[in-house]
């Protein structure tokens, strides 16, 4: 067995526990420097000196996405701004994004996690890594980029989209590993023939690192079969850095969570108690290796369960099952997170739009499509099509700039949605059970 970071990856259970205990104590002290946690600890009469064991963690309240939003933009920052070297942001539940800050040290740690994750899945410095995830505020682009570079692979920072160019790069630079969403991998497989590739296996890919959206074991197997690759399941969320929180090892029997950086809990979302071993529940993570912005007991809303027993790879870092869904209304559309409330926020800000709308998510072959049907107010209709189309295009443009993905907007007659569906139904996800 070889490791990328031997010291961290070969920790025993006892070593993990004592390391976590030490790091938890220091993390609490760091967190207390932030406006948000100072207020929260004081209010709940939490003395950070009194937290001595991992079991004491239960005295710390959970942190939620709403907390992040409410403390926007700097409430959770625990270091002076001049120590921050990067920020990332993800979709908030309303118009405001949630922002995560990183110091130089934080980025080094994150990069190490990604590098060891890729190594653990089987990639080596001789591989060529084509990063087909969107760069920018999302963490999927830069997070994997720096980790793959650190590992020593040549990285092609092509970002998402433009299949013709993706294929050309794979062929010309002999890409062996891709970072891709499962839906795009399936879409590309059908599209390849248009670029002169008869069999996806002819591309010579060896690894497909896939994350950004939940997918089934069957989908992973299908992609492995089509391309002749190892599918590597990658889990992460921007609040906890991004990709590299948990990753498949070569055994591919669950993802190891890097416990030298995260304390992992799974709770029953109703009782907020820990689930019994092996039961499904909501993943809760505490980042114990970040100085700029520690986040304690973060409710990820992702549903998973622990896998019992030791992994054949020898690593003692705990394993979780493939994420099977979420316990909130977040939609994942081609790897991008969208909350219905973001759409509502945009629509309700436009005077021409009436109160009712429906969000429809469907599959066009393998890619997700977002359609927003919205009622317009009667008085904007002047009897010609031009001003309707102008309004439709304007809504599409504003949605695109807010959601960062394209939505098709269908205008419908005033009061027609209320009559046909009732107000309660806002989201129709036609993809259910189809991935």
């Amino acid at each position, binding site marked *: 067995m070889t490791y990328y970071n031997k010291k961290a990856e070969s920790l025993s259970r006892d070593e993990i526990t004592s390391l976590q205990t030490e790091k938890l104590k220091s993390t609490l002290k760091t967190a207390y420097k932030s406006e948000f946690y100072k207020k929260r600890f004081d209010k709940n009469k939490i003395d950070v000196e009194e937290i001595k064991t991992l079991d004491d963690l239960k005295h710390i309240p959970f942190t939620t996405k709403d907390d992040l939003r409410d403390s926007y933009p700097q409430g959770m920052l625990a270091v002076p701004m001049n120590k921050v070297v990067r920020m990332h942001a993800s979709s908030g539940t309303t118009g405001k994004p949630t922002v995560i800050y990183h110091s130089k040290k934080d980025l080094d740690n994150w990069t190490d996690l990604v590098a060891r994750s890729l190594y653990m899945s089987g990639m080596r410095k001789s591989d060529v890594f084509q990063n087909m995830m969107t760069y920018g505020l999302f963490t999927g682009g830069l997070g994997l980029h720096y980790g793959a570079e650190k590992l020593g692979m040549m990285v092609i920072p092509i970002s998402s989209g433009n299949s013709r160019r993706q294929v050309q790069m794979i062929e010309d630079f002999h890409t062996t590993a891709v970072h891709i969403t499962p839906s795009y991998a399936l879409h590309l497989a059908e599209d390849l023939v248009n670029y002169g590739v008869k069999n996806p296996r002819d591309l010579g890919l060896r690894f497909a690192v896939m994350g950004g959206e939940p997918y089934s074991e069957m989908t992973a197997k299908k992609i492995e079969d089509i391309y002749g690759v190892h599918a590597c399941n990658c889990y992460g969320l921007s609040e906890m850095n991004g990709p590299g929180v948990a990753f498949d090892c070569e055994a591919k029997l669950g993802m190891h969570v890097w416990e030298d950086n995260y304390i992992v809990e799974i709770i029953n979302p109703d009782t907020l108690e820990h689930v019994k071993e092996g039961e499904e529940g909501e993943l809760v993570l505490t980042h114990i290796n970040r100085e700029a912005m520690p986040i304690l007991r973060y409710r990820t809303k992702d549903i998973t369960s622990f896998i019992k027993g030791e992994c054949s790879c020898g690593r003692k870092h705990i394993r979780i099952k493939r994420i099977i869904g979420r316990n909130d209304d977040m939609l994942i559309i081609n790897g991008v997170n969208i909350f219905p409330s973001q759409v509502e926020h945009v629509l309700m800000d436009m005077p021409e739009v009436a109160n009712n709308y429906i969000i429809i998510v469907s599959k066009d072959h393998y890619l997700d499509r977002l359609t927003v049907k919205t009622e317009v107010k009667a008085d904007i209709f002047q009897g010609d*099509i031009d001003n309707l189309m102008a309004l439709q295009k304007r809504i599409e443009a504003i949605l695109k700039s807010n959601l960062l993905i394209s939505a098709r907007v269908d205008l419908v*007659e005033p009061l027609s949605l209320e009559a046909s569906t009732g107000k309660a139904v806002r989201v129709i996800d036609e993809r259910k059970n189809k991935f």
Partner: protein
Amino acid sequence: MPVTELSVFIENKHGRIADIANILGENEISIDGFDVAHTPNGYGIFRLMVKDVMKATKILAEKGFTVREKNVIAIGMEHKAKALSNILKTLAKENININYIYVAANNVLSVSTSNDEKAQKLLEEQGCKTLTQEDL
């Protein structure tokens, strides 16, 4: 004098135009002409010509339709070669653009242009027979 037509905002779904035709039919209103403009985004406009505009507007609005009245030029066209081309040439020569155009019952041509007033005058000068609501 121009003719008034109705524009109804419609969602592109089964039976929507049938609904309009049924409602008007039940109220003894005859449709003298119609046209549909549609977009790829599931909505469009159903335009129609009727004699009693006020009654039709009221009935459709009561049934929840979004209706607007709009003026168009109505021309009684002769059914012979060059009839249409003469009309269009007259407008084109004066740089008048056509927003939309359709044929209604009894060879009536309905035209909405960038300048209806000027268009109607030019057409009349060319000997075209323009119609009023009562002529429909």
